[in-house]
C-alpha cells in the first residue's frame, strides 16, 4: 500500500489541531519487508499442524539485526492479532484468514487451502508493517524476531486468564446496556460498514460463482478442439480447415484456463479479504461503542452515587480521555482504510478487466491468423462489422 498518497483529511480548525493524530512519522520508504512461505507440516502425538517461515528484512534501528527468520503457526498469528486489537481497540487491524473452511472441503492440509492461507497470512503481516501505528507494536516485533521457543514464553505474559474472564463479563454487561448517544459520524460509519459488508459478501459470492461457471465451461470446451480434429481425419479437402479450427479451439481453451487461474489467484483473495475486513470493522465499532458505554455507565454512577464522587470523577475524566483518543484514532484510521480499500478494490477489478481484455485479444489473434490461412475463400466473404 502506498502510504505516500495519504494526507490527513481532517478539517484544520485550530481546536481540532490539538487532537489530530498526524501520521507524520510515517517513513517515506518502506523499511520493513516480510515474506511468508515454505509451509511445513508437523506431526506430534497430540496434533498435526502447519508452520510457515516468516522472513523479515529491515533497516530499522530498533531491530537488533537486519534479517530475521522464524517459523510460526496459525495460532501465533491469532495471538498477534489479539494483542494488536487489545492494545489499539479502535484501530483497524487487518483480518486473518479463517480458521477453517466450514463449507465444502474441510481438509485443513489440502495444498490449495494451505497456499491460499499462506498468501493471506503474508498480506496480513505486510498490512501490519505498513500501518503507521501498528508497525511499532512491541508484540509485532516479538512475533517477527523471537526464536521459536521464546515466543510461547512471551505469549504467557500479559493479562492472566482470570482478568480476561472478568473483562469479558463486564463487557457482556455493558453490551446489554448498549450505548446511548452514538455520535452522528459513527452512526453513519456503522451504517456504511453494514452495507459494505453485505456488498462485499455478494461480490465474493458472484466471483466464486463466475469461477465455477468458467471451470465448467473450460471442461466442456476441452472436447471441442479434439472433436474437430477427429473429423479432420475423415476428410481430404476439408482436413486443412477443420484442423485449423481444431487448433484455434485448443489455443482458446488454454487461454480460458489462464484467465480462470488469474481470476482465482488475483481477484478472489482480495474480495475475500474485504469480506473479512467487514467483520473487523464491525468489531472495531463494537469496541468503540464499548468504551463509550463504559464512560456512560460511570457517568450514570456518578449521578446517582453520593459517596466516592472524587474518585468517580477522576475515573470519568480518564474514560473521557480514553474515548476521545479512541474516537480520534478510529477517525484517522477510518480515512486511511477507506483510501486503501478504494485503491485495492479498484485496482483488483481493473486488473481483472485487463486480464479479460488480454484473453479476448489472444483469442482474436488466434482466429484471425486462422482466417488468413483460409484467405482464398475468406476474401470472397464480405467483411462483417469491421469497426
Amino acid at each position, binding site marked *: 500500500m502506498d502510504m505516500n498518497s495519504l494526507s490527513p483529511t481532517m478539517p484544520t480548525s485550530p481546536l481540532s489541531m490539538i487532537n489530530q493524530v498526524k501520521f507524520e512519522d510515517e517513513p517515506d520508504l518502506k523499511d520493513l519487508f516480510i515474506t511468508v512461505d515454505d509451509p511445513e507440516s508437523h506431526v506430534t502425538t497430540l496434533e498435526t499442524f502447519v508452520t510457515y517461515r516468516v522472513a523479515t528484512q529491515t533497516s530499522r534501528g530498533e531491530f537488533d539485526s537486519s534479517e530475521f527468520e522464524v517459523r510460526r503457526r496459525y495460532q501465533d498469528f491469532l495471538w498477534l492479532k489479539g494483542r494488536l486489537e487489545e492494545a489499539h481497540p479502535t484501530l483497524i487491524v487487518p483480518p486473518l484468514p479463517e480458521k477453517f473452511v466450514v463449507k465444502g472441503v474441510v481438509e485443513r492440509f489440502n495444498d490449495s487451502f494451505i497456499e491460499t492461507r499462506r498468501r493471506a497470512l503474508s498480506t496480513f503481516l505486510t498490512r501490519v508493517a505498513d500501518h503507521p501505528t501498528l508497525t511499532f507494536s512491541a508484540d509485532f516485533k516479538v512475533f517477527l524476531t523471537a526464536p521459536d521457543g521464546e515466543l510461547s514464553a512471551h505469549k504467557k505474559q500479559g493479562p492472566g486468564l482470570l482478568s480476561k474472564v472478568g473483562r469479558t463479563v463486564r463487557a457482556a454487561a455493558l453490551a446489554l446496556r448498549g450505548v446511548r448517544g452514538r455520535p452522528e459520524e459513527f452512526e453513519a460509519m456503522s451504517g456504511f460498514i453494514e452495507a459494505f459488508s453485505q456488498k462485499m459478501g455478494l*461480490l465474493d459470492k458472484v466471483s466464486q460463482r463466475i469461477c465455477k461457471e468458467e471451470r465448467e465451461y473450460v471442461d466442456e470446451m476441452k472436447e471441442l478442439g479434439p*472433436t474437430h480434429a477427429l473429423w479432420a481425419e475423415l476428410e481430404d*479437402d476439408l482436413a486443412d480447415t477443420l484442423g485449423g479450427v481444431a487448433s484455434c479451439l485448443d489455443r482458446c481453451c488454454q487461454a480460458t484456463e489462464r484467465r480462470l487461474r488469474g481470476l482465482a489467484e488475483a481477484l478472489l483473495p482480495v474480495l475475500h479479504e474485504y469480506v473479512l475486513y467487514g467483520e473487523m470493522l464491525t468489531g472495531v465499532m463494537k469496541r468503540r461503542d464499548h468504551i463509550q458505554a463504559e464512560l456512560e455507565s460511570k457517568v450514570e454512577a456518578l449521578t446517582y452515587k453520593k459517596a466516592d464522587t472524587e474518585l468517580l470523577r477522576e475515573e470519568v475524566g480518564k474514560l473521557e480521555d480514553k474515548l476521545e483518543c479512541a474516537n480520534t484514532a478510529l477517525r484517522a484510521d477510518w480515512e486511511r482504510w477507506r483510501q486503501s480499500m478504494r485503491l485495492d478494490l479498484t485496482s483488483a477489478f481493473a486488473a481483472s478487466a485487463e486480464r479479460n481484455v488480454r484473453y479476448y485479444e489472444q483469442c482474436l489473434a488466434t482466429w484471425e491468423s486462422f482466417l488468413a490461412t483460409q484467405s482464398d475463400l475468406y476474401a470472397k466473404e464480405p467483411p462483417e462489422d469491421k469497426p
Partner: protein
Amino acid sequence: MEQAAPDLERPLQPAPLEPLGHPDAGPEAAVGEEAEGAPDEEGPGDRTMTENNFCLKKIEISVSEAEKRTGRNAMNMQETYTAYLVETRSVEHIDGPSVLTDSLWRRYSEFELLRNYLLVYYPHIVVPPLPEKRAEFVWHKLSADNMDPDFVERRRIGLENFLLRVASHPILCRDKIFYLFLTQEGNWKEIVNETGFQLKADSRLKALNATFRVKNPDKRFTELKHYSDELQSVISHLLRVRARVADRLYGVYKVHGNYGRVFSEWSAIEKEMGDGLQSAGHHMDVYASSIDDILEDEEHYADQLKEYLFYAEALRAVCRKHELMQYDLEMAAQDLASKKQQCEELATGTVRTFSLKGMTTKLFGQETPEQRESRIKVLEEQISEGEQQLKAKNLEGREFVKNAWADIERFKEQKNRDLKEALISYAVMQISMCKKGIQVWTNAKECFSKM
C-alpha cells in the same frame, strides 16, 4: 475417386440402348466398369419429367412465412400444425425484377412426401435432407417444443434450403412432381400417391439382407458407406459437445450480470466511487446480455452442420441401393450358372454336384432320353432368358454406378464448399465475439482505473 468430373448439363439417366461389354457377364463384370453412353432425354417415366428448367438461374423459391393452423387429421381428431408459405418467382433476366408466379401453403408432412417420392424415383441421387422433425441437440435455453417460434423459424429456413437444393440440382429440378409441389396446392398429395411410388420402394428387410450378403460391391461404395457412418457419428458428437459448451458459456456471461446489480447497489453507499461503479455495472450488464446474439448466430452454424449430418443418411441410401442391385445381379448370375451346370450335367450324364434330380434319378432309376431332352430344352430356354436378364441387370448396375458416382462427386464438392464456408463463418463469429469482449472489458477497465 478417379472418376472424371461429370458433365452436369447432360441428363444422367439410365440409357437402355447401349452396346454391352460381355454377353454372358458374371458377377465380376458388374464391378467398376464404365459404360460409355450417348445422352438420352428420357427420365424415369415420361410423365414425371417436365420441360421446365427449374435451375436456380431462372426462378427464385422462398418459404416466406409460417402459420399455425388447426385441422382434422386422418383419424378425425383435432390437431395443430404449422403451414409454410412457398412462393415461386421467375426472373426474366439477371438482376431484373422478379415476378411472383406461384404461392401456396405446405405443411411439413407434404415436404416429407415429396422427399420420399424423390428417394424412390432417383435412387442414384444424393437427395437433399429435410430439417429435423423434432429439435435435437438443444442446449437448455433453446426450446425443444415444435411450436416454439424460434424452432419454427429455423425450420422455415431449413425447408427453404431444401427446396433451393432440389431446384439447383441438375436432375431433380426437372421432376414434374417437384414442379407441381411448387405450383399446385390442391390434389397434389393424390397425384403423388397415384404414382404408386410407395410400392416401388425397396423394402428395408430386402436392403438389409443385401447389405449382409453381397459379395462384390464396388469398393468405392463400401468406402463411402464407412465414410458416411463416421461422418454421422462425428457430427453428432460435435453437435452434442457444442450444445454443452453453449450452455456453459451462457452461464458465464449471465453471472456477470450479477456484478452489474451489486456494483449498482454498492455505488449507492459510496461518494467518490459512486459514478464509476455505476458505469462499471452498466458495462457488466452489456456483457451479460451480449451472449444472446452470439449464441443465436452459433445456432445457425449448428444448423449447417445438421444438414450434413442428415446428408450422411442420404449418402448411405445410395450405397444401400447399389448393394441391393449388386446383390440382385449376383443372385441372377448364380442362378444362371447353376442352370447351365444342370444343363451340362444332363447333356453329358455326369453328376458333378448334388442335385435333388440326381438323387431321385439314383433312387428311382434313370429317366428316359425323351424326358431328358425335354428337360434340357426347358433349361436352355431358361438359360437364354436368364442371359438376357443378366445382360440387362448388368447394364442397369453399371449405369447406376456411373450415374450415382457422378452425383456423389458433385455432392462431395458441394459438401466441401459448404462446410468450409460454414467453418469460416464460425471463425468470423468467434472474432466478432472477441471484439465485443475487448470493447466491454476495456470500458470496464477504464471505469475502474478512473475511480
